[in-house]
Structure formats: C-alpha cells, structure tokens
C-alpha cells in the first residue's frame, strides 16, 4: 500500500468538531486587541518539549538513602535483577549512571534527571524510596528470577476542572513493569501508552538496564543568588521524562525537606509535606526558538511568576518559574545573577551542585 502525503494531511484534519469561534468572534477579538495594542504580548508559548517519538519513561533504581544521609550515602545495593550487569546506585548526590540503549525501536536515554531519591532515564529508585502498592494490583511476573508486576497501559480521564482544557490522553496510564531488584529496592520501566508496547517489549527494556560510570549531572547555567532556604532538589537535561532539546538544562529548588520515601512515581509539583506545600522554584534553559515571549538579555517577567532572560547571543532562553512563592523582583534578582556556560558545548557546563 502507498500513501500520498498531501492526501494523508487532508485525511488528518477530517472529522473536525464544530468550530467554537465564529467570524464575529474573530472581529471582536481583533477590536479588543486593537484597544490594548500598546500592551502587546506574544501569542505563543513558553518553553518546551513535547514528548519524544519513542518516549520511554525511564526506570529508576533506589537505594536506602534518606534525605538526611544524602551527602555521603554508600553505593546502593546493586540491582542484579533484570540488568545484564549489576546496577549500583551512584554514591554521590546529583550523579547519574544509567547508560542509554536501544530495545527494538524504542530508545532509552542516558540519565536525564536526578533527584536525591532517584535518577531518570529509565527510572531507578534508591532503596526504600519506591512503594509498589499501586502496581501490586497488576499482573504478577518474574523478571530474571525476581518478583515483579506488569501493568498494561490504560486510557486516561481528565479530572473535573481540567476537562476540555487538557486532553484526556494526557492522563493515560503508561505500560509499566516494576521489579524488586534487591531487598526493598525497585526499578520501574514505563512506556508511554501511545507507544502500545507489549509486555514482552517492556520486559526486554528492563532486561537491558545497565549502570555505566557515575557522572555528575551538569547544567549550562549557574546562579550566584538564590533566595534564602532554597536548595537544589533536581537537575539534569530534562525536567522530568522528556527527551531534552539541544542545550536544555533544568534545575529545581525546594525550600524544605522532601522525603523521598513511599513514592509510586517520580515526584512532581506540588511537593506536599504534612499537608503543606513546599515552596518550589524551577529554571529551564532551552533554545530560544522554543520560547513564547519576547525576551532579552535583560530579565523580564511577561506573566506573574514567570520570568525570562536570554543568553548574550540570544540563542537560548532561561525560564524561571516562581511557583507563586517568589515576587517578580526577587526572580529578576536571581536571573541577574546567572552565568551561562556555552549551551552548545557540554564541556563548559557546570556541575549541578555548583550551579546554585
């Protein structure tokens, strides 16, 4: 069978729902814009990354290292489970050691995101961090002689309040395989629902999870000013489970201790401890073409809680999201303290632990 591309594109937009806007709406929007043209802002978007074609949520491995002992925890008991070589969690904080590989037509990247409790590429949790209670309702399997569970992908449903704003598919449950590679230590492989990976394909990925040399996570910017109490909580080329863009870096700062225990998935904003949300600040550097707002080397805040600054050559943009916890002047102060590495040359990047 052959497809002609323009026919494919025509077919791709068939069966459109009834339009929400009329010609009158367009005229009204134009008139409104005319009235406030002196305060024009761009129409696009802020940073970023849409999922990758072969998007895989990576596995994580965890050792029994609580936040209080993060600084010099011993190497994790190796995950001798599914990996052909034993997986040992890096001893130092904010280092990653997942080595990328291909499995069929799916690709697992090197470590792209590190927190005190786990590293992401494949998600490998430290011992004691992952709680398998959710996946224990799924099918029991054995991974290289170790007990595990396989959860097939399930269609999602947007919660009330988000219906119509966010596609229901954003809440799909990915296909996941969790296995206990050591006592109270779990690794998890999750594959996006839309990939439609079979249990065998997910198991094949799990079997290839290996540890390489531990390398400090680096980012291409650093700050000389951080508001009091905020500390490094996550860093890497990717904010979560995205495949990063060229030159992309991410840093999360949290004010207060977040307990990396009992997780059933990588930690996400909001970070709630004892019913109280920890203040969080997130910085992401990405290619300027991926940005929404007009920004320059001088920091500016086009929206409350969102401030931007570009590199000197204007090719990259740094987004600072204050999460509602910092004032715009405070965020401008942070952005003014930024030093950029050369985003196109990872050799110039800073260790995440030196970046804040």
């Amino acid at each position, binding site marked *: *069978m*052959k*497809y*002609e*591309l*323009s026919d*494919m*594109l025509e*077919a*791709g*937009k068939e*069966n*459109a*729902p009834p*339009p*929400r*806007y009329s010609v009158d709406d*367009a*005229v009204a*929007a*134009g008139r*409104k*814009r*005319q009235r406030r043209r002196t305060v024009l802002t*761009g*129409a*696009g*978007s*802020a*940073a*970023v*990354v*849409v*999922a990758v*074609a072969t*998007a*895989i*949520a990576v596995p994580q491995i965890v050792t029994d290292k609580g936040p209080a002992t993060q600084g010099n925890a011993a190497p994790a008991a190796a995950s001798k489970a599914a990996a052909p070589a034993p997986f040992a969690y890096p001893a130092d904080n904010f280092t990653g050691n997942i080595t990328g590989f291909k499995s069929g*037509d799916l690709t697992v990247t090197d470590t792209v995101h590190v927190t005190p409790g786990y590293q992401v590429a494949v998600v490998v949790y430290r011992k004691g961090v992952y709680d398998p209670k959710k996946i224990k309702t799924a099918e029991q399997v054995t991974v290289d002689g170790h007990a595990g569970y396989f959860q097939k992908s399930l269609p*999602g449903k947007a919660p009330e309040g988000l219906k*119509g*704003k*966010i*596609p*229901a*598919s*954003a*809440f*799909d449950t*990915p296909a996941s395989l969790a296995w206990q590679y050591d006592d109270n230590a779990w690794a998890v492989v999750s594959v*996006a*629902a*839309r990939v439609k990976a079979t249990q065998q394909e997910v198991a094949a990925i799990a079997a290839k999870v290996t540890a390489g040399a531990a390398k400090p996570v680096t980012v291409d910017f650093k700050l000389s000013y951080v508001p009091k109490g905020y500390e490094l909580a996550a860093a890497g080329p990717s904010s979560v*489970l995205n495949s990063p863009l060229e030159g992309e870096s991410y840093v999360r700062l949290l004010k207060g201790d977040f307990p990396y225990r009992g997780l059933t998935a990588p930690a*996400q*904003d909001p970070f709630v401890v004892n019913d109280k949300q920890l203040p969080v600040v997130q910085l992401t550097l990405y290619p300027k*073409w991926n*940005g*929404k707002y007009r920004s320059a080397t001088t920091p500016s805040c086009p929206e409350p809680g969102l401030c931007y600054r570009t590199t000197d050559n204007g090719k990259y943009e740094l*987004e600072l999201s204050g999460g509602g916890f910092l004032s715009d002047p405070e965020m401008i102060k942070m952005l003014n303290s930024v030093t950029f590495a050369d985003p196109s040359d990872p050799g110039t990047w800073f260790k995440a632990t030196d970046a804040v």
Partner: protein
Amino acid sequence: MAVSDREAEFRDFVTAQMEPLRGLAYLTCGDWQAAEDAVLTVLAKLYVKWRRVDNHASYARTAVVRAAIDETRRPWWRRERSQSHAMPDHPYPDDSTHAVDERLRVREALLQLPPRLRAVLTLRYLEGLSVHDTAEALRCPEGTVKSYTSRGLDALRQILGVEVFVNKELRREVRAV
C-alpha cells in the same frame, strides 16, 4: 481605508480562511481546542495590522503554524504532558469501516511526529510552500526544513509500514493557487 471597509475585507477573509487555518493549526499541534485558540489569536493580530500586511493569507498561515507550535509549549501543557508522555488528543468517531480505520491510522501516525516536524510537512505538502518559504515561516535554516522533511517522511513510513510518496505535480498546483 475606512474602518468599515477594513472590517468588511477582514470579515470576507475570515469567512474564507478560518476553516483552512483551523485545520492547519490542528495538524501542527494535534489538539482542536488549542488549534482554534491559536487561530483566533492570529486573526486578532491580523485585524490590528490589516493595512500593513501585504499578503494576508501568507501572514495568517505562517503565524498560525507558529502559534500552534507555541500552544504545545505552554508551561501547563509541558507539565501535564511530561508526566504522561501523552501526545495531543485526537478523538475518534465510533465507526469501524475500513476507510475510517485507515484515516485514523494516518492521523495517529501524523500525531506521533513532533509539532515542528509536522509543521514542516504540513506547510510544504498541504500548503505547498517551498523550502525557502517554509524556512522563513518557521524561522529556521533551509537545511533544517530539508532535514525535517526527510525525517518526517521516514518516520511516517516506519510508523505506518507503508510507502509514503510526494505528488510533486499536486504540490505545484497547490502553490499556484
């Protein structure tokens, strides 16, 4: 030009172009609601600068593609998508005929491509833009357009497991319109 004349011209333009622009935006971002928001935003801008724009259709087309790509980069979009690895929504009708199955399969394949790559294919092979014009519309080098075109076609072939070809005659016809 009196305001009423401008508005009449604008209305005629929107009447003719709103639906094609909506489809273009949808193919780029993969979400009908986001696509419509992008189109409305662009039309509002065009209304303001109507007299300063030479080619209204060209302006609207390129601006809509950019705006649709932007829609996929909004912070909430990124946060929500990053947690689920989900692609844009694409509701399917409850119809199991072969033709519908094929159409859905094609749409599914298109939606698996990244937005910028989809935008390149859409501008070149649906809108009939040249490599140069596509590069200008997306503010990227011509080499990127060529590379994205090749990658996009390869990706569609792999996803669908069939040959995907380009009807160059048709493309010239589209451009001539």
